[in-house]
């Protein structure tokens, strides 16, 4: 009897709690929701609308239909140049960075002594970013007295080669950026290392029992178990390298022969140097669609090669 007396109150208590939960949820989440409307979805829609106009921020926007997109796809050669530069940078910087990061993580996972010290050293460069990084590397790439050519000097003498003009030569400017980006592989390395440490030891023991050597163990245990982490690093790497801006703005600007005119740099110039806000908005939307397609494509491809423990997530 006492039991049936208590039951209704407890149930009422629970539903009151659920209601409180719901109220709290939306209340606590409200900053993000407001921010998403004001600085996320709102501007996203607004820039789509703007991309159909001519707008220089001083006069009223004028509707021009698809003219901006027509110019972007058919008459503006710089768009393709910027896309090509960005693609070149991404295609080399991201995979190379991931390979080196994985190698370092594998080395650190060999139960080395002084792991925290090594980890600190390799992560340290990622703390340097923005203008400071660009200034330092501009100095390192200096053709006459820079660090890089100083180190290369013996080789250059040996093969009778002139000093490479890193940021001045249109052929070498983009590879220079790739080289610089490798310096910041520490973040990806830490993520890989955490992933490696999460692989259960018994999988390796079982593989060894079955007679698998180090190479096969890497291919059939390490890589599949690490594949979600690889996907994560790949996705973040591509998205961030598509947006390279500060380094380019400071180091070379458009560069020799527009060879370092990266996409966001071009967008920035159109918007804030020439005040072609409508056209820049069209550029922004093309960037958005590209990032969306590339990410979606990656996740679609990922179904073939990413292994999730316990089935699909």
């Amino acid at each position, binding site marked *: 009897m006492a039991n049936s007396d208590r039951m209704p109150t407890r149930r009422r208590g629970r539903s009151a709690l659920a209601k*409180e*939960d719901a109220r*709290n949820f939306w*209340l*606590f*989440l409200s*900053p*993000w929701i*407001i*921010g*998403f409307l004001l*600085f996320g979805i*709102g*501007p996203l829609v*607004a*820039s789509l609308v*703007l991309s159909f106009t001519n707008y220089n921020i001083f006069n009223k926007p004028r509707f021009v239909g698809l003219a901006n997109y027509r110019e972007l796809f058919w008459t503006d050669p710089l768009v393709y140049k910027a896309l090509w530069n960005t693609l070149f940078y991404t295609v080399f910087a991201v995979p190379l960075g991931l390979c080196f990061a994985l190698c370092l993580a594998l080395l650190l996972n060999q*139960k080395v002594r002084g792991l925290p010290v090594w*980890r600190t050293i*390799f*992560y340290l*460069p990622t703390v*340097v*970013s*923005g*203008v*400071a990084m660009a*200034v*330092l590397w501009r*100095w390192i790439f200096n053709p*006459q*007295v820079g*660090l890089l050519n*100083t*180190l290369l000097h013996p080789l250059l003498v040996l093969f009778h080669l002139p000093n490479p003009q890193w940021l001045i030569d249109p052929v070498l400017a983009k590879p220079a950026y790739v080289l610089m980006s490798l*310096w910041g592989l520490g*973040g990806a390395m*830490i*993520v*890989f290392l*955490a*992933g490696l440490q*999460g692989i259960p030891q018994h999988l390796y*023991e079982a593989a*060894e029992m079955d007679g698998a050597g180090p190479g096969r163990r890497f291919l059939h245990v390490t890589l599949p178990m690490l594949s*979600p*982490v690889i*996907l*994560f690093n790949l996705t973040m790497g591509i998205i961030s390298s598509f*947006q390279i*801006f*500060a380094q380019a*703005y*400071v180091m070379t600007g458009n560069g020799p022969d527009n060879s370092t005119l990266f996409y*966001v740099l071009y*967008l*920035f110039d159109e*918007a804030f140097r020439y005040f072609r806000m409508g056209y820049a908005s069209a550029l922004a939307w093309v*960037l958005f669609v590209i990032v*969306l397609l590339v990410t979606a494509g990656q996740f679609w491809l990922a179904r073939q090669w990413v292994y999730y423990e316990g089935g699909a997530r």
Partner: protein
Amino acid sequence: MSDPIRKRHPGRRYGVYVLLGAFALVMLLPFYWLLRSSLVGNREVLQPIESWRDLLPSHLRFRNYPAVFEAMPFFRYLLNTVLVTGGVVAGTVISSSLCAYAFAFCEVRYSRWIFYGVLATIMLPPAVVLIPTFILFRELNWIDTFKPLILPAFFGSPFAIFLFRQFFLSLPKELIEAARIDGATGLQIYWGVVLPLARPALVTVIIFSFMGSWNEFMGPLIYLNSQSKWTLQLGLNSFIGQIAGQWNLLMAATVMVLLPVLLMFFFLQRYFIKGIAMTGMKG
């Protein structure tokens, strides 16, 4: 896996250390170059290095550092940067921890999917929303103020929300339940129970938002016009055009811009490593 291997290939251990040492040298050389360049004279900095001895400065010229203060209003930029960064850190911590509380402790039906939605916005490139946001702040007459740089931080950052949520989920549920039974409101539990326990997550988020804001370039470039409002990043950028070959001064300025971030890293690095490692765990 390494124990049996270690017995079979004792030489391999040394190979690992040799490789690590070589990589470490490559990673550290730019830092050495930065420091060396900041401590040599005007002429020496432009001289090619011909022997091993040239790698060391002929004498240490600490004068380069005070010289930077004469060449650019460093303290003004520093003060501006501290103001902006302080605002961004405060905003990010408060708003993101509130949002994370909602995801971690309020049982609502689609909360997990909304959380994935928040994470998905990491993929929205800032450049895509740049122009309408600029127009909005211009309409508000906020150009050349710190508001466009600070205010958006008060609406939560997906990365910080993620870090807080993961940490909150690891807290014992009984504590929150007990507080609720005692009749505490959500805000009281957030402030009195959850936040005091969340120190590691707080430190991690403070570090990353500090770094992000300290190094931020595009925002200040667009919104700050008058030189008296510039941040260190803008100051350093304009200093390049001003130095006329005095790379030693430029490098000294760079060291000073980097110093707070480097110090923070050295003293709080375990939080850095944890934070970065956590982002990958979710996959």
